[in-house]
């Protein structure tokens, strides 16, 4: 797999975790919708790409899944953040903030020698 997808998947995973933290148990469609809404529809994702990410998180033990019934009475798989998932989210959030802050400082640089 090429680097871009990895980065993208990583970011997507973080969005999924954060969404689940905010919403509580939620099915795949709900997560996808919420991510789009949160980004004010700036982000448009292929909903299909969400599922491998959910599977990976589940395999790692960050989220767990069980079948339930959705608001409009459809049988759907609901994902829930586990303890390990919360820890992961906390550390990822910290890292992400640090990274953006550092990058931000670089963007704030002005020419000093010119």
């Amino acid at each position, binding site marked *: 797999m090429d680097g871009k997808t990895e980065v993208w998947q990583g970011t997507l995973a973080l969005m999924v975790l954060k969404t689940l933290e905010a919403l509580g148990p939620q099915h795949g469609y709900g997560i996808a919708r919420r991510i789009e809404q949160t980004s004010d529809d700036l982000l448009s994702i292929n909903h299909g790409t969400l599922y491998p990410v959910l599977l990976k998180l589940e395999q790692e*033990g960050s989220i767990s899944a069980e079948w339930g019934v959705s608001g409009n009475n459809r*049988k759907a798989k609901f994902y829930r953040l586990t303890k390990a998932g919360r820890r992961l989210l906390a550390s990822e959030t910290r890292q992400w903030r640090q990274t953006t802050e550092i990058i931000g400082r670089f963007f704030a640089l002005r020419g000093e020698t010119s």
Partner: protein
Amino acid sequence: MRTVRRAWKRLSGTFASARRERELAAELQAHLEMQTDDNLARGLSPEEARRQALVKFGGLESAKESYRDQRGLPQLETLVQDARYAFRAMRKSPGFAATAVFSLALGIAATTAIFSIVNSTLLQPLPYGDAGRLVTISLDGAITAPLFETFRHEARSLEQAALFVNVSLNLAGSGEPERVPAARVSATLFNLLGAKPRLGRTFTAEEDQQGRDAVVVIGDGLWKRRFGGDPRVLGRKVLVNGAPRTIIGIMPPGFQFPDGPELPSFVGPFPPAEMWRPMALVDWERPCTGCFNFGMIARLRPGVSPEQARAELVAILQRVVPETRNGATGPDLTVRTLRDAISSQTRTPVFILFGAVAVALLIACVNVANLLVARGLRRRGELAMRISLGAARTRIVRQLLTESLVLAVCSAALAIPLAAVGIRALIAIAPAGVPGIAAATLDARVLAFSFGLALATALIFGTAPAIAATHGDPVDALKSGGRGAAGSRSSLRPALIVAEFALSLVLVVAAGLLAKSFVTVARTPLGFHAENILTMRLSLPDTKYDKHSRAAFIDQLTAKCAALPGVTSEAAVSTLPLTGESEGWGMVAEDNPNPKDYTMLRVRAITPAYFRTLGIRLRSGREFTADDRGAAPVAIVSATAAKRLWPGVDNPIGRRFKMNRPMTLVAIVDDTRASGLDAEVLPYLYIPFWQFAPEEFALVVRSAADPAALAAAVKSEIWRLDRDQPITHVAVLRQLVADSIAPRRFQAVLMALFAGFALLLAAVGIYGVVSYSVAQRTNEIGIRMALGASRGDIVAGVLYRAGALALAGAALGLAAAYEIAPLLRTLLYGVNAVEPSVFVASAVLLVAVSVVAGLIPALRAARVDPMVCLRYE
């Protein structure tokens, strides 16, 4: 932790169940429906709502596919698929699968079994601390006490040194008296070996002195067997050869010393010692410069090589014992690592058998490759079809290799129980005295070896056929309906057959050379007559007999035996022929100006009738007589001994020679091969038992008929004289002769088995190729017969083809054997390594086998009905 968990989940996800697939479908379906519901709620038409949901999702199948990749391990999945496919293919052609698996399993099993012997006899480390620095030091196989002291004190390359000698001791004092294999050892021995007792202690330097040595250390086996593993035996007194000795230590299980037939050469086939007593040299042993009675072991200083040590010892020796004619000169001094000393006789045969069995396995591989090529030809249509449909060649090669791997793994699974049986059989038929062989088992190393072997074989036999099968234009294959092969493609199979025959020939030649050596050795003149002789061993320990009572016992015993019906002659001797060698005495002729120029002679104390009984011819002089008793000491020597003691003297009878006391030579007898049929002829010294009588004696009784029938009567005569006399090793001398060449027979039989296996495989191979070519050429044969060829012509044609292949293989094999046979040289006796008769006979045998194997398809070809054939066309 997360990665591990995920790897495990993926591994288990690889074996996708239908349930997982259903769940995935249901989940994605629910997603789409929810999206469609929302779209409908936004007022879209049902079709448009559905379409947009699908667009938004971005390809249902590709999402599923990437989900599946994420779920399992795709490469592993392919492998599992291929393996399943391979199993199906094997079930579809059970004949092929059975032949391939069985021949490979036999090959792998035999190789594994021999490897387990290599492992236990040569690869296992010696059970001593830092064993690489341990060496044995000997002059012509043994050493004297004064030389030992000199070496020990002067040689800077030796860190520690010890003397040892095997003895067998009568143990009594608790339970039945028994004869225990034991050793006299210096107090330093245990420390030198890095061995610690499991209980108690070993000898102190003080206990290593005459008169203070009333102590013994016992082995774990004896402790458990005789004393029930009771730790309170420490400090208990037992009777050893009738004298009380205190048990002071118990060695741990696995401790063995001396170990092996090579320590030193006179030790002979003793069983491993179970009891040790201090060396405690006695007054006459300490200064005796001619008493080559001991073995010497030493630990080299770190960084000193055995060669350096030898150079130093030779220099010391030449200073102590100046210029000698044929006695203790430098070249006779050997310094060998303990590993060498223990396994020197085992190493070459074991490695050669290992090489032979590896060749047999290689032949099995070639055979299976041959079968695979044949199958590849039949499956050409199927493979061509898959290639045309877009399968990559590498993918198909990978699949074919997986099939080979499945074959190999099945074979290995079958081979392991076979190997276990084989190992037990090998241990059972192996000649006595191969150190470490009894410990041969399927341990982790051996199992790893056979697993690796299976993988290697899969690569060896699988690669070429896999490439051949996918080679060529698929269109051709499809056009011919997958039925046959183009002429150019079939060149691989004859090449494999030629290789098989060449390899087989090498094994047949090796088996022939070993068999011929065995026959030559078996026919070597012994120098004595082994027929109709009963032998047994007795023990007359110093604690129970003195010199006179021992001589009296022997006198009475021979007289009693002579009176038994059926006995024609009887004698006693200190060491039986072919049961290990005796100690050596350094003897000097009295007229030799250099008193230190001794010749080492092997000693036999005998009763006068010994030569008569064994049929050893007197060359000149007379036997010992009763008149020699009480007169001046006398001796008889073998022809070789006389030549060395009195070089250039025609008739030395009447001359005197000595070690301590001078003896007069009264006769010269023929040489005997008493130390081994294939060993160098040793010089012997015979002295009457009243002059020198060791504790151990053997009785030899010649009978008019079956000697074994006499055993009971002789034993009861012995017990009438001494009811506590332990009688051991009752045997017929002919059997001792046979036992002494058992290792050669063992090697020849095993090699013949491997060669037979190889020939069988080669015959199967050539049968397959010839049958196939007959089947392919049925039409051609029919046409030729229609054109007037006789059945004889057809048969001859087919046989010619088989014979030509075999001949090509034989030619190649002869060249290979010419290069390889010299490796066998150390195992051969009286046979040249490139013996023409063996080479020619092997080649003839090979061609004959190929003709027999070709006969069945040839006769089938001759039965072809030209009319049926042409009509079919």
